[in-house]
């Protein structure tokens, strides 16, 4: 029991047996049940205390901030109703930031999916050195975003950067530019960095999903003369669909609340070219002291992301149910 457990990667157990313990313990004698309840309350108290103070209380406060006009100084801010929302809807900066979010969500979801799946398919079935490749591809995702931002700022540097240098070497001098300083390229340059960092994460998830793909079906398709594209479309993709949707959900939701990498690399500039809702909420609250307005923005971002999460998760659950009885 212990030897194979060490050989296989640590994995969270499936949730299928979640309710088993409850049905058994409910048959336990009252003495046991009382002792269990006592210990349970004892064990959970510190957790509840921290969660209540540092999670639930500020969340409730966020909802309160939205309906007042708090400037950070006056502790009894005036009630303003929905005017934070109406101002937000009419703020052109919000809309241009929202447009950047949409670009970020689309490119930042599609590109890592394509690259990650491509890499996973390429490495699928390769045994020798696969650990090395996994480390190389996954490492960028584990690094702190500040470090990633610093290094990529050098790569994008107009005169001493490797990107321009590489373009010159292959005769594409016409394309060289100051990637982060040029308003037309800045957003895509930061996006490129983000894609570099997330592709490895998507890759590792797909690789573990591919391990569960039925190889007999692939063999059968090969015998039937299916080409690579057909095998991918009709055999592999349907089998990894739940994972595919899960990854989409994750990168999509991440796209709504993107902050760190943009804040670090461009701070929203040049001239608002990379401003997203997250950086705009931050600067509203902490640079312009418009605390309530910033909080409203942050809350709107969260609320916008929720339907995507719910919808995709529902789809994912339906598909995984289909998978079990197929």
């Amino acid at each position, binding site marked *: 029991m212990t030897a194979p457990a060490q050989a296989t*990667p*640590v*994995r*969270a*157990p*499936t*949730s299928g*047996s979640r309710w088993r*313990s*409850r049905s058994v*313990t409910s048959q336990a004698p009252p003495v046991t049940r009382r*002792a*269990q*309840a*006592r*210990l*349970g309350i004892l*064990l959970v108290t510190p957790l509840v205390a*921290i*969660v*209540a103070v*540092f*999670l*639930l209380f*500020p*969340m409730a*406060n*966020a909802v*309160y*901030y939205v309906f007042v006009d708090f400037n950070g100084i006056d502790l009894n801010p005036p009630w303003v109703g929905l005017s934070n929302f109406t101002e937000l809807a009419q703020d052109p900066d919000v809309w241009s930031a929202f447009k950047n979010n949409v670009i970020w969500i689309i490119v930042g979801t599609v590109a890592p999916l394509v690259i990650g799946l491509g*890499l996973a398919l*390429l490495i699928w079935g*390769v045994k020798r*050195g696969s650990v090395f*490749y996994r*480390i*190389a*591809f*996954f*490492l*960028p995702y*584990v690094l*702190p975003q*500040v*470090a*990633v931002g610093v*290094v990529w*700022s050098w790569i994008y540097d107009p005169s*001493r950067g*490797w990107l321009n*240098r590489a373009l010159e070497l292959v005769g594409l001098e016409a394309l060289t530019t100051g990637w982060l300083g040029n308003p037309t390229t800045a957003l895509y340059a930061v996006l490129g960095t983000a894609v570099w960092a997330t592709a490895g994460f998507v890759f*590792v998830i797909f690789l573990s999903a591919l391990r569960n793909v039925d190889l007999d079906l692939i063999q059968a398709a090969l015998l039937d003369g299916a080409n690579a594209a057909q095998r991918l479309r009709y055999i592999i993709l349907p089998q990894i669909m739940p994972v595919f949707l*899960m990854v989409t959900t*994750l990168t999509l939701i991440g796209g709504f*609340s993107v902050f760190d990498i943009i804040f670090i690399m461009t701070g929203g500039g040049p001239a608002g070219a990379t401003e997203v809702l*997250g950086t705009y*909420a931050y600067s509203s609250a902490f640079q312009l002291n418009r605390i309530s307005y910033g*909080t409203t923005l942050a809350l709107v971002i*969260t609320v916008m992301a929720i339907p995507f*999460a719910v919808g995709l998760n529902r789809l994912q659950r339906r598909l995984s149910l289909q998978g079990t009885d197929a």
Partner: protein
Amino acid sequence: MSHLARSRKSRRLTGKHLVLVLLSLLMVFPLILTISTALKTKQDVKVNPFGLFSSFSTENIVTAWTVGNFSDYVLNSFLLSVPSTILVVALSTMGGYTFARLPFSGRTVIFYLVVLGLLVPFFTYMIPLYFQLRGMGLLDSLLGVNLVLASTGLSFGTFFMRAFFSDLPTELEQAARIDGASEWQIFVKVMLPLVSSGAGALAVFTFLQNWNNFLVPLLYMPGGEYRPLTTGLYLFLGGRSVDIGPLAAGTLITILPVIVLFVAMQRQVTAGFLSGAVKG
């Protein structure tokens, strides 16, 4: 025929490896660039920015470590990551066990409140939390920032550990109970040892998350007395953007512990991040 097929297959495998090695190099190139720049002489960084490993010197590292205050930042990063990680692992294990195995009335409601943090991103409440911490006198304090870092990891930790405890067979605790063990003894002596691999994965994952965290120290350490590596590097970036050598050295100091931990415990880290994906 079969020989031919095999040689074609092996040739394709060689081609695959070639492509994979090239792609790996492309992926780790920013890392190679950092290491190379950090270890060059200052003069060489200026005149020959494209040379990789074209000279060797530790002067950039020394500058970052002393003038750049990175020696302080390293210490602060540990002071902020270690206690918060211990807190997350301990409280999540205790909570996870309760939510899996110790029923009491109201438990389900409490569980949903705890895992609410999985749905609501930190982003949503970070601004009110700033004013709350200011009111509590916890801004710029090790205690305050450790508690906040812990609170961002507790929802996932509890969810993660509960799954491990739920999967253990009930026969174990029943046998221990017949032998006269108390509920506390069952938890500590019977159940805890069985989830050590899960707790280990959670510890590595949480440590990396806290070490890498940028927003929490940025917001709640405005004075910078206990500034960790992430915000320290950011400050360094703004202060001397022309001087790439020491900046590269600072970057290397920031990521070195992460790389060592990741390569050494690759399996646990990946497992943690993969389960962390549940967060959506």
